[in-house]
């Protein structure tokens, strides 16, 4: 019989760095660290040599020089003598504008498509399947360009155009016009009343929920919220003699004046992004609803819940847990895809900072770095929010 011998001190040999699993991972990591540092040093060295060869320095001073170019769709004051950084900010706001509009419309389209896709109605579910399959399998850039081209080619010129929807929308080949809000001097009172009632609704809902949890008494939250939303604002609005009015676009000469001018590039980008992302959201919603076990519905019925409370209290909370994470990553995709604006000339941040500013100043390195930093910040922020949400809805397993 053999006896296991215990050898207290095994001498360390150099070969053990690789053959002994106690040391191997340290060895590998040291080598990797060394290689990464070597690569980094090599790249930085190349950059320095190349910049020196071209006679360029690495500085962000150019941001404070005048930009000398115009941006036709903007949310804040900007003219061609404004500095480059302001152009970048205009671009960032434009990106955020199309991203927010796109996310909202894509969600609406996606939820409708996803629910109808599951409908028992054969025709409508097949129609939605065709929509989802076609849109998901065709490049987004192509859809944006197609929509933009269709707007420019097929919409009438301003002179020949007819206002639609009672004057609320004018579609021309130069863009879309919608009425703008004009605030009279006392208009801000109405706006602040509205904001206050929003806060009021929030507080009321919290109070109502707390009360229900304590006493079991159910308060009709929806109708009261609706009342709070409308009544005070309406009273203030009429008491002050309608200080907020709409300014309609009017045809003057060859073009429309007044109202809000949405350029074709913005509308094409917005619609194409929404339709494209909507198809993906549709699939997410469908799979989310299908992921809920049928037993959940049956159990809720067995407990005596009515169908819409079953939906609200049992199905939706569980479906949302499946739906929300991929939904948010679709929002993120939409934001990143909005950089395709450059193809139709909508001045988002890629068009200003990564486009004209880059070409005018020749500062590729700084511009691309700033551009990437912006997108990275947005995505990391959204990922952080998503992780927080995932933590909060995670199944609490016992």
């Amino acid at each position, binding site marked *: 019989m053999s006896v296991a011998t215990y050898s207290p001190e095994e001498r360390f040999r150099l070969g053990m760095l690789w053959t002994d699993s106690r040391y191997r991972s340290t060895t590998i990591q040291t080598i990797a660290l060394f290689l990464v540092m070597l690569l980094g040093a090599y790249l930085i060295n190349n950059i320095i040599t190349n910049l020196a060869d071209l006679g360029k320095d690495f500085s962000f001073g150019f941001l404070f020089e005048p930009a000398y170019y115009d941006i036709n769709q903007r949310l804040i004051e900007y003219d061609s003598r404004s500095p480059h950084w302001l152009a970048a900010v205009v671009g960032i706001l434009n990106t955020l504008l199309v991203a927010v509009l796109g996310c909202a419309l894509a969600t609406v389209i996606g939820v409708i498509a996803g629910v109808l896709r599951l409908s028992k109605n*054969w025709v409508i579910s097949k129609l939605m399947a065709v929509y989802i399959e076609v849109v998901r399998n065709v490049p987004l850039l192509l859809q944006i360009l*197609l929509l933009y081209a269709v707007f420019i080619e097929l919409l009438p010129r301003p002179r020949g155009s007819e206002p639609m929807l009672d004057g609320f929308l004018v579609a021309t080949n130069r863009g879309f016009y919608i009425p703008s809000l004009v605030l009279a001097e006392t208009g801000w009172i109405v706006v602040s009343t509205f904001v206050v009632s929003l806060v009021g609704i929030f507080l009321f809902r919290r109070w109502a929920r707390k009360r229900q949890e304590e006493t079991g008494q159910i308060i009709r939250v929806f109708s009261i919220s609706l009342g709070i939303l409308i009544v005070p604002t309406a009273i203030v609005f009429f008491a002050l003699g309608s200080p907020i009015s709409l300014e309609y676009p009017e045809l003057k000469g060859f073009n429309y004046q007044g109202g809000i001018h949405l350029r074709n590039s913005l509308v094409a980008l917005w619609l194409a992004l929404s339709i494209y992302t909507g198809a993906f959201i549709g699939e997410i919603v469908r799979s989310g609803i299908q992921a809920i076990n049928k037993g959940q519905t049956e159990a809720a019925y067995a407990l005596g819940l009515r169908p819409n409370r079953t939906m609200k209290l049992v199905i939706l909370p569980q479906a949302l847990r499946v739906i929300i994470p991929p939904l948010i990553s679709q929002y993120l995709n939409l934001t*990143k895809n909005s950089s395709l604006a450059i193809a139709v000339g909508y001045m988002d941040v890629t068009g200003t900072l990564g486009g004209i500013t880059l070409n005018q100043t020749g500062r590729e390195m700084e511009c691309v770095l700033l551009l990437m930093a912006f997108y*990275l910040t947005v995505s990391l922020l959204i990922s952080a929010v998503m992780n927080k949400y995932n933590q909060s809805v995670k199944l609490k397993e016992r």
Partner: protein
Amino acid sequence: MTDNSSIAFVMKEAKEAMPAPITTTGPLAWTRENLFSSPLNTALTILSLIFLAWMVPGLVQWAFVDAVWVAGSIDECRQLSSEGACWAVITARFDQFMFGFYPEDLRWRPILAFVLLCVALLPVLWDAVPARKQLFAFSAVYPLVAFVLLWGDGWVFQSVSSSDFGGFLLTIIIGVTGISFSLPLGILLALGRNSNMPFIKIICVTFIEFIRGVPLITLLFVASTLLNYFLPPGTSFDLILRVLIMVTLFASAYMAEVIRGGLAALNKGQYEAADALGLTYWQSMYLIVLPQALKISIPGIVNTFIGLFKDTTLVSVIGLLDPLGIIQPILADSTWNGLVVELYVFVGLFFFAFCFAMSRYSMYLERKLSTGDRH
């Protein structure tokens, strides 16, 4: 004895079952069940039918009945038919759409390369193919063959400059290269992210999160304007190659996340069992973990492939002549000025065919592979 004569009638055999009521089977019931089961459903059906009746005939009329297939310019098209689609532009520029500006007398080379690509894909996609082993060997050397065929080697095959590449040829080159290199790279990144070596993990996480955080277009800007700064002075290499590298890196980060999902979905017992058998890390990954994890992540992997294939169109933004890049000069050309929809629809159909085929193939693969673990 009972008197049988007082019983009027006794059935000797069971009666034949009557057919089910017409409202519960057959087309009528199907219609009722699926189209008109509730007022809302009826309304939806009627709305969709109106939509279809309005859409389909007009579309057919435009695309087929009134369409012009051969003409020399848009004016000829409009003379022949003022309302229909002018597909003549596609027929006239078909070669450009396919090959870009690839020299005309050498076009047999990309065609041969494409045929060989199909041969090389056979053993990968279909396991009942005869002589699969030998074909796999061919698939392994195919990239080299394709490179020599497409770019030429300067001796046997005349060299072709990268700037002549274009059209669907370019799309397929970028798509196929990206797809075939991003999968292995993605697997390595995913394993790195799951590794228990903190430094390796940090490298992989940083890379993945960085690539996923920025739009592809900024990476293409890097490829077109910035990459020269990172190289030793004086070196410059081909724009297509730079784009290929960027697209592959981009897709591999997304692939890594998809595969990480598959790795996470795998039962922990599988890892432990592999360790208990005394397998080394790579053995356990290759024999136990990856085959199962990849199977779980097939839908995600194919979705990444489809996304990559669609994203190849972005190279037109940095000036490469992919199909969307080919369209721009045609739009500006006075012979065809005014034709827009036809061009985009044609390119869209091409992409749809490829991507749809890919998604169907992934469904087939899922079905085929899922037979093993039905509980």
